[in-house]
């Protein structure tokens, strides 16, 4: 029995899939099954799965020389997604299946030993590749990590057996999780100024640093941020879902429009935070794309790891360079950092005494600064709330109330930017404030008195602009300037 076939498969590179032609040639000779074309171990293992799956589904495994070539052969192939394409290629080459049923189709899926098709990570990326090439897309029947996209012709395949009849199924997509988030800012009592700062940060996308003793509610304040942010729009959802799909993370929350909230532990390695490994997997910054990256205990992170956050913060994407090329992940996120004020955590606390020496406090606070300070616009202090206030359940601002301001601010800012063509660079920030003469004098005096640097001035003004946006005011007034001044990042020399 001799035969030949070509089917389309794909391999992931970052968040993009690249077409791979799976050529199968069957020739006479000593029975063998070889895969060539820079296939790594995980692809080599698919031989055994394909053999078992074919037998279980009632097909014949040819007793001849089988050669599978994955082209282009200079591209490293990895993962179990080639199982389906190899099996189908074999069936076509041996004439056991009608070639028309898989014509112009991109096949991606892992096989179980009894012939059923499973999902692999990154299906959304494969589907986009198929759509862009004008191919049909065939994958598992209820695929994990796939969301409906425009212009995609996709079908599900439950088992290899169904190829006999050409019985493809309609895809069953994951359902969005519309469950109301249980978190609400109304849960937090006594931190009204902290909540206000969160509202400003959410409206303007400002980076924020929170400092306070353990148990003061820093994490509570941060983790409720998604509840006051506007829902993801379709483009944002897709680009964020793409990263989550490749990383094999659940998509249900994103589908409901909830922004991702990532809080990596401070032991995170640079590969975990920025992406890496082989094959390259997106890191936390990419998973936080369109959402929030929360660095709790930021002083405990390895300084070298924090240093590497600079590039994604500046460019909105993270680039990982490898010997065989550079891979880019989108990474446009809002940065929230929190820290204890000192190693023991109780410096400045009303009840517990701090056990740190002065030098230790200073060193610790200096560690927080460094590379991230460029991107942090606001600095707030969070105090522990007295038990009475927590139990007393004083009514404070709820997420819904805060979100009103955020939406108003964002709406006004985008109107303002469109109308006046104001971008984000520092000159635009200053001109967009439209300071009157007396406000300008006031701010000049404040900047001089507080010995603010040029960068600090621009950042304070951009926060003031956001505060004015929330109130939908065309010009920044004295009240906004004052509030921004109290939220400004203080230099480490305050000690």
């Amino acid at each position, binding site marked *: 029995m001799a035969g030949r076939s070509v089917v389309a498969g794909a391999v992931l590179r970052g968040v993009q899939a690249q077409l791979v032609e799976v050529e199968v040639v069957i020739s006479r000779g000593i029975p063998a099954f070889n895969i060539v074309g820079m296939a790594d171990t995980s692809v080599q293992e698919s031989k055994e799965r394909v053999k078992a799956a074919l037998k279980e589904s009632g097909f014949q495994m040819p007793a001849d020389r089988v050669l599978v070539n994955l082209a282009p052969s200079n591209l490293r192939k990895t993962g179990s997604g080639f199982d389906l394409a190899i099996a189908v290629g074999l069936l076509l080459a041996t004439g056991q299946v009608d070639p028309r049923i898989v014509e112009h189709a991109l096949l991606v899926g892992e096989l179980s030993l009894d012939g059923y098709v499973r999902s692999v990570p990154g299906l959304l990326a494969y589907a986009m590749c198929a759509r862009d090439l004008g191919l049909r897309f065939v994958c598992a029947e209820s695929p994990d990590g796939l969301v409906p996209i425009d212009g995609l012709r996709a079908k599900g395949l439950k088992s290899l057996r169904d190829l006999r009849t050409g019985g493809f199924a309609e895809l069953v997509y994951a359902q969005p999780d519309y469950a109301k988030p249980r978190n609400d800012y109304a849960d937090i009592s006594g931190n009204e100024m902290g909540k206000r700062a969160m509202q400003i940060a959410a409206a303007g996308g400002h980076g924020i640093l929170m400092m306070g003793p353990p148990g003061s509610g820093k994490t509570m304040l941060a983790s409720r941020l998604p509840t006051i942010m506007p829902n993801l729009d379709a483009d944002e959802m897709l680009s964020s879902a793409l990263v989550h799909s490749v990383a094999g993370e659940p998509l249900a929350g994103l589908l409901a429009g909830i922004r991702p909230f990532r809080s990596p532990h401070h032991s995170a390695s640079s590969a975990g935070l920025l992406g890496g490994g082989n094959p390259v997997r997106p890191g936390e910054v990419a998973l936080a794309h369109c959402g929030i990256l929360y660095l709790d205990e930021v002083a405990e992170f390895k300084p070298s790891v924090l240093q590497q956050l600079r590039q994604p913060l500046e460019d909105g994407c993270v680039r990982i360079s490898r010997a065989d090329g550079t891979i880019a992940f989108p990474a446009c996120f809002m940065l929230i950092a929190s820290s204890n004020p000192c190693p023991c955590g109780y410096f400045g606390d009303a009840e517990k005494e701090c056990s740190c020496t002065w*030098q230790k406090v200073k060193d610790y606070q200096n560690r927080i600064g460094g590379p991230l300070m460029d991107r942090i616009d606001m600095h707030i*202090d969070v105090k522990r709330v007295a038990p009475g206030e927590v139990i007393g359940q004083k009514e404070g601002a709820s997420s819904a109330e805060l979100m009103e301001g955020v939406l108003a601010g964002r709406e006004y800012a985008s109107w303002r930017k469109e109308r006046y063509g104001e971008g984000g660079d520092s000159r635009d920030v200053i001109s967009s404030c439209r300071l009157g003469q007396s406000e300008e004098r006031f701010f000049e005096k404040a900047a001089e008195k507080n010995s603010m640097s040029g960068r600090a001035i621009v950042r304070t003004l951009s926060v003031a602009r956001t505060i004015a946006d929330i109130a939908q005011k065309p010009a920044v007034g004295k009240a906004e300037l004052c509030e921004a001044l109290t939220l400004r990042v203080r230099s480490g020399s305050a000690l």
Partner: protein
Amino acid sequence: MSKEYRLSGARYVIRHDDELYPQSLRRAPRAPERLYVVGNPEALQPGLAVIGARKATPYGRGCAHRFAKLAAEKGICIISGGARGCDAESHRAALEARGLTVAFLGGGCDKLYPKGNASLFQQIIDAGGAIVSEHHWDREPRPYMFRERNRLIAGLADAVLIVEAGLPSGTFSTADEALEMGKEVLVVPGAITSESSHGSNRLLYQGAIPIVDDESFEDALFTVLGMLKRQTAGKTPAIATDDPILSAVLACPASYEELYELARAQFGAHAREKLVEVIAEAEMDGIIARQPDGKWGPSAQLVASQR
């Protein structure tokens, strides 16, 4: 590791039976056999010790500056420990007033601690003051040496002024040493809610002389050191404010949230606007300052200038 800074200036080893050995120190408990001095050995004269917490608040630093300067202007030698915070501030104030000042170090004079104050030490020497230690030049400072050093500060001085002391603290132990030696202890009171004033307020309760303004300080100098009272002593003009927020901050450091609660009680719906305006303006005017722990409190300049 930064290079060890070596103080330049005349060096003396003063033995216990030497003429230069200060009389008042001879009576101190466990009087050292030798004193290692860089600078002017004649600066080792009875004076006023001004000490306070290292982790000082702007209030503590401001008080140290204000009273050390007042005393130095009258020609009183300011004695302190050369530590950060209040100590360093009082040395600086003395230098500003072109007065003499003496710093007792914990370790040897070639092992400066804290290193960051090396240039201050050099200025002290250059201004005719002295850096003193009971240890050999190269002796590494150890935490236990600093408490021992405190007895020398109390021993040399005629009176000890405490501007800020927590509880327990090295400053508090110096006060104990001073009382044992029969020296006068003057204390600047603080807010009872402020942790950094617990020790000083406790000392007041135990009968230390309270220093509440320039006048009371000059009275104390007069009785204790026999200084002539300066007739021109001004009164303390409190910052004229009827603003409840500002007066709260000046009375006791408070966090942003606490002030917001206060403002809400006062101004209702416009609390936030009012609060941020008061805070930003007062900070700009140098009346209040943000403390390292994030609370707002009276600024160092304000405390130092109220005279």
